[in-house]
C-alpha cells in the first residue's frame, strides 16, 4: 500500500469511526429520557450498535496508522480538532423529533455507504461493512418509521419535525463532500466516491418525506469543516463528558 493510500485509508476509517461514536454518544444521552419505555430501549440499542461500529473502525484506523494507537486511545485521547466526524451527528439533542430527523438523515446515508463498502477491495473494510450493514438496515427502518409517524401525525408533531429538518438540512452536504483522499480511495476501489451515494440518498429522502407529508428544504448553503477538524461548539462538551473518566484515571481498568 502506498503512503498516500495508507494516509487516506487511515483518515477514512477515522471519519467513519468518529461519526459512529459521536452519534452513538448523542443517542446514549436519551437513556432514561425517551418518551416511551420501549423507545428508550430501542434508542439505546441503536446507540450500542453505533459504538460497536466505532470500535471496529477505530481499531482498524489504529492498525492502518501503525503507531500503536488502539481504539480506546483514538476515542479518548484525541481532542476536538482531531475528530473527523460529520457535523450533523454532533448537533445536540433538542426533542425526540429532532433526534429522529438527525438519525434518519444519517441512516439514509450510512445504509447506502455500508452496502457499497461490502464490495471494497480492502478485506477488513468489506468485513466491517458486512457486519454493520445488517444493523444499519434496521436503524433506517426505525428512524424512517418514526419520521413518517411524526410527520404524518398531529399538527404539533408535524411542525416539530419539519422545523428539525429545516435546521439540520445544512449539515447534510458534508456527507457527500469529496477531496484528494476520497479520490485516492475511489481509484483503488477501497471506498465509493462520496458523491456516488447522493442519488440513492435523495431517492430515499424523497420517498420517506413524501409519506411523512414533509417538505424537503432547498439545497442552499451547506455547513462544512468536520472532515478537517473544524467543529461546532457542541463537540467539545460532548467529548469532555465522554472522555472524562479515561482522562482523569488514565489506563484505569475494572
Amino acid at each position, binding site marked *: 500500500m502506498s503512503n498516500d493510500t495508507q494516509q487516506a485509508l487511515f483518515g477514512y476509517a477515522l471519519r467513519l469511526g468518529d461519526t459512529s461514536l459521536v452519534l452513538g454518544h448523542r443517542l446514549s444521552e436519551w437513556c432514561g429520557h425517551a418518551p*416511551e419505555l420501549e423507545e428508550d430501549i430501542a434508542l439505546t440499542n441503536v446507540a450500542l450498535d453505533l459504538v460497536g461500529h466505532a470500535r471496529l473502525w477505530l481499531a482498524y484506523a489504529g492498525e492502518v496508522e501503525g503507531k500503536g494507537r488502539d481504539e480506546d486511545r483514538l476515542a479518548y485521547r484525541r481532542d476536538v480538532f482531531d475528530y473527523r466526524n460529520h457535523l450533523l451527528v454532533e448537533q445536540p439533542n433538542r426533542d425526540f423529533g429532532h433526534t429522529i430527523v438527525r438519525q434518519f438523515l444519517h441512516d439514509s446515508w450510512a445504509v447506502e455507504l455500508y452496502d457499497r463498502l461490502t464490495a471494497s477491495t480492502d478485506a477488513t473494510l468489506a468485513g466491517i461493512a458486512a457486519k454493520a450493514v445488517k444493523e444499519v438496515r434496521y436503524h433506517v*427502518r426505525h428512524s424512517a*418509521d418514526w419520521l413518517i409517524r411524526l410527520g404524518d401525525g398531529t399538527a404539533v408533531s408535524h411542525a416539530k419535525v419539519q422545523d428539525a429538518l429545516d435546521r439540520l438540512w445544512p449539515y447534510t452536504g458534508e456527507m457527500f463532500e469529496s477531496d484528494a483522499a476520497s479520490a485516492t480511495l475511489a481509484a483503488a476501489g477501497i471506498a465509493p466516491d462520496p458523491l456516488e451515494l447522493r442519488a440513492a440518498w435523495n431517492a430515499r429522502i424523497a420517498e420517506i418525506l413524501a409519506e411523512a407529508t414533509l417538505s424537503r428544504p432547498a439545497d442552499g448553503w451547506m455547513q462544512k469543516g468536520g472532515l478537517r477538524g473544524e467543529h461546532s461548539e457542541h463537540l467539545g462538551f460532548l467529548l469532555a463528558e465522554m472522555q472524562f473518566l479515561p482522562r482523569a484515571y488514565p489506563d484505569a481498568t475494572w
Partner: protein
Amino acid sequence: MDRKDWPLFEIFIRPKNGLSHKHVGSLHAADGRMALDNARDVYTRRGEGVSIWAVPAASIAASDPSDKASLFDPADDKIYRHPTFYEIPADVKNI
C-alpha cells in the same frame, strides 16, 4: 394519539425453526408494525428468535381463572388421555 391510548400487545417469539411461537411478554405500541419493532428491541436483544408475532391483547379471548375447576379438573382422572404408554423413538425431537 395520546400515549395512554397505545394498546397493549402480547408478544410471541419462535426461538428456532421447528418450534412454535412462545409467549414472552407484552408491550405498548401504536400499531402492529411498531409492536414488532418494539418487540425486536425489547425481547430479542440476545438473539432469542427467528420470528415474532404481535397480537393485540384485546383480541385474545381468555378463560376466567375462577372456571379452573370446571374446565380442567375433570381431566385429572383420565390418564388414558396422556400418551405415556408409547415408546418414543430416540430420533424424535421436541416432544
